[in-house]
């Protein structure tokens, strides 16, 4: 598994290398200035934001190949399991046949011996009735009767033994038949699973073929659900790890979920006492750090068969609401209801620095891709930029458009519910609820605010293009800045897609339940959401496989 992770990690490095190479071969003037660039390059505000077309995603192919390999290996293992079960079933069937034959023979023998015994006993009875008067004949008759009696007794004993054997065999037969039924059930289930896995493996293989023919791009117009993962509680946070192996999700409960994206197998991570609203994963190692509402932060090895907390640290008084791992993996930042931001060493789980300045609960933290800066946002939409090295407050940004004090209900509503920084470090976005008309019913406008990192200026306030009301719980830049995606809802759920800098979405999708969080797969083609209906969903934005197209055509025809 570790080896597999390393392979995945090298894939990410490859992805980065491809990106960097792309930048290095282009003359500066021809560079698409709004595209992803090395985060170490000097920061520069880019205005106006160029509305570039969809970006080719070269990393999609190796990710698809890895998925296909994994699916193929799983299919092979499943085939083996099916074969094993089939062999076991055959063996049991043979044993049943053998038992049935033996039983038949034994029963026949019992029948014949019973008849023989009856005859002997009848003869014996008759001879006793005709006792000779001659003493010599009488003696002979007695001897003969004695011999017959002995024979009858022997036969009777044999019969008893035979009957016991029959009973035992019947018992064995019942057990074997039960075993057979169980094995049949298992074999059928395994066979079904194999069929599904083959279909999945074929699909992955089709993606590989598709991406080999042409580098794919992400297009929200092709948005479709490709997988769903169920839990026992509403899901509250989600991410896909850097290796692309797992969909991870916190819930409105203490159990944290790790789903294998290919096999859909779930592992529950236990250690927290409350909800996990925020967590982060290492970019180059199988590290997972979760923060929970009981105030604790936990370190996990993502690749362990059954991960246990490696460290469990009381980090904040009240909720831990924010967790972010630095790009180099050496630091983790947390934020909480105690209005503090804290920096911890990842290696030792030791507090390095406390950043004070927020006057309200800290809802989100995020490292700038350069690793030099940290940004934090609070309940009132106040955003602070910190120098990671010195802990100095560098700048404040105003995100108060997603905050309101409701004088009717006497409550503060809003805050930085979602936050992201583009991979090139040029933009950052926050999300929440604006224009609130009723705080306690959550009636307001789902809102994303886009900022220019260099100038700190607000570039756009992005809202739905209809009258939809609710909270925008999460926001993410597409890895290539092709668009910004955000999720939210009130009693129903939505996903919106905006071009950078545009106020209204160019695409939006109503989904099955209210999503509280989202993330992009590192391939840039897939995205996941964590939903109120206890389900995490995986969506695809890439080109459809022939099988998908055929299925869609069939569905369309059926509808007609």
């Amino acid at each position: 598994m570790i080896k597999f992770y390393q392979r995945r990690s090298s894939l990410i490095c490859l992805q980065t290398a491809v990106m960097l190479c792309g930048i290095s071969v282009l003359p500066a003037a021809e560079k698409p200035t709004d595209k992803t660039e090395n985060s170490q390059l000097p920061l520069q505000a880019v205005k106006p934001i160029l509305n570039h077309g969809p970006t080719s995603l070269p990393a999609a192919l190796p990710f698809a190949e890895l998925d296909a390999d994994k699916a193929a290996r799983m299919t092979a293992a499943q085939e083996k399991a099916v074969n094993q079960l089939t062999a076991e079933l055959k063996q049991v069937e043979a044993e049943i046949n053998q038992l049935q034959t033996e039983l038949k023979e034994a029963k026949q023998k019992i029948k014949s011996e019973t008849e023989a015994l009856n005859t002997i006993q009848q003869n014996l009875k008759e001879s006793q009735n005709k006792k000779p008067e001659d003493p010599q004949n009488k003696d002979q008759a007695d001897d003969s009767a004695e011999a017959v009696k002995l024979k009858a007794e022997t036969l009777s004993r044999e019969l008893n033994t035979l009957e016991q054997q029959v009973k035992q065999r019947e018992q064995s037969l019942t057990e074997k038949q039960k075993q057979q039924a169980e094995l049949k059930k298992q074999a059928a289930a395994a066979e079904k699973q194999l069929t599904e896995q083959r279909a999945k493996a074929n699909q992955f293989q089709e993606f590989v073929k598709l991406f080999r023919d042409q580098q794919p791009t992400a297009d929200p117009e092709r948005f479709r659900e490709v997988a769903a993962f169920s839990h026992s509680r509403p899901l509250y946070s989600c991410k896909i790890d850097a290796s692309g192996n797992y969909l991870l999700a916190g819930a409105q409960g203490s159990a944290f979920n790790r789903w294998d994206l290919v096999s859909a197998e779930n592992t529950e991570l236990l250690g927290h006492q409350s909800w996990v609203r925020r967590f982060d994963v290492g970019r180059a190692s199988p590290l997972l750090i979760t923060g929970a509402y009981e105030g604790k932060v936990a370190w996990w090895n993502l690749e362990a068969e059954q991960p246990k907390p490696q460290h469990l640290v009381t980090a904040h008084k009240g909720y831990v609401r924010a967790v972010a791992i630095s790009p180099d993996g050496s630091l983790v930042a947390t934020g909480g209801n105690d209005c503090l931001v804290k920096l911890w060493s990842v290696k030792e789980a030791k507090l390095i620095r406390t950043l004070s300045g927020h006057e309200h609960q800290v809802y989100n933290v995020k490292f700038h891709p350069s690793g030099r800066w940290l940004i934090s946002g609070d309940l009132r939409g106040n955003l602070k930029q910190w120098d990671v090295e010195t802990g100095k407050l560098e700048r404040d940004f105003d995100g108060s458009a997603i905050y309101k004090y409701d004088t009717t209900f006497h409550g503060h509503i809003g805050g930085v519910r979602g936050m992201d920084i583009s991979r090139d470090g040029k933009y950052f976005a926050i999300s929440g609820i604006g224009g609130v008309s009723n705080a306690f019913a959550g009636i307001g406008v789902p809102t994303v605010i886009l900022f220019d990192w260099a100038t700190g200026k607000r570039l756009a306030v992005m809202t739905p293009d209809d009258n939809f009301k609710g909270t925008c719980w999460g926001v993410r830049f597409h890895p290539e800045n092709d668009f910004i995606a955000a999720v939210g809802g009130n009693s129903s759920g939505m996903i919106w897609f905006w071009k950078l800098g545009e106020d209204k979405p160019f695409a939006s999708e109503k989904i099955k339940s209210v999503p509280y969080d989202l993330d992009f797969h590192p391939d840039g083609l897939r995205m996941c959401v964590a939903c109120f209906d206890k389900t995490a969903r995986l969506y695809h934005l890439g080109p459809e496989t022939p099988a998908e197209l055929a299925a869609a055509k069939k569905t369309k025809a059926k509808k007609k």
Partner: protein
Amino acid sequence: MQGKGVTMRCNYACGSHESLTRRSFMGGTAAGALSMLGFGGMTQVQAAKKLAAQQKQVVVFWLSGGVSQLETWDPKPGTETGGPFQAISTSAPGVQISELLPYTAQQMHHLALVRGINTRENNHGKGAYIMQTGRKEQPGFAYPYLGSSFSSHLSPPDSPLPGYISVGAGGSSKEATFLGPRHAPLVLSGGKAPANLEMHASMTTERDKLRRSLRSKVSQRFEQKRKTAHTEVYNESFDQAAALMSRRDIFDFSHFSDKDVERYGKHDFGQHCLMARQLIEKGVTFVKVGHTNYDTHSENFNFHIEQLGEFDRPFAMFISDLYDRGLLEHTLIICMCEFGRTPKINSRVGRDHWGTAWSIAVGGAGIKGGAVSGKTNETGTQVIDREVNGGHLFHTYYQAVGLDSTEEFYPNGQPIAKADPKTEAIKEILA
């Protein structure tokens, strides 16, 4: 003038303040007619103790909108409905409440919990009516509210003080119903003292006396021919206004120490609790303090952190201060609202209205501190032991302050049970 008031009340609120008070008030009302005068020279504690020996008082904390029982008195940590908070131990052995009430937890030995309330009502107005009258709304008849009832039963008849004051909790003159306007709430709007308590600068005491005498004579002459309830209301309003002006000191809220302000908080609710403490110390019978708002259909947990974060400390300080001043054993404290909130967490991370299985806290006079009545199931969706409703609660309140809850009012000669006769007091929480 005040004696006249008693006689007049009898005419339309028969059952009479006077007779009921005399018959049913079991807490030493012989001294009830004594004025608050004569406390001069005493220390605050001495004065409070003297007052306590004379009179039972009641304070209601009204958590408007419906506080969540799961985030307060009946936590279910770790369950599907329990939310993100933990339960904490309290000063009452074996009693746990939500971690959102750490200060209140330290006062639980003064409080009892009723965890088995089922009012079968999820409407704000109707729920509020049940909890403040002990009955379901009935067309054509209005029961008096708790504040008006206790003002009627417990206030000394000749007291110049209003019997029912509402601080930051609103209120309507309709609450008094047949008990008459004297027992309607005096609403301190915005937590401020009533306006114009001082005599106008242009008016001398002598001129004021003459003016009142003239008004009284004209009024008496008018009443000889056309006496109505309205004329009584007018007369009483003048009397009450004069009494209020004479005791305007109770509304002087400018002398709280910095330490008190620090302990209670500078926010409105903290200030309102301090005001309530003063009103109780000064002898007001019934004080209702409001805290708003808990109608958390969206983001229930964030809003409860915010609202209870404000509520917890001043509420606990209030109980602690009343105890320290010897007032708690004579003051019934009720912390309630119109209903609880749904165990199911909705898609807005909120909780909706829930009258089926919820809780309140009571304490002080006549209450067994640390007692718990009723039980809900593991997820809080049903009462599984000792189900009670507004009627049971009313019997309990009455008996806690030494009143006979089985007695009746007689408005217009009709007997009206003070508390629902189909229910009885929750004996296990009575001291």
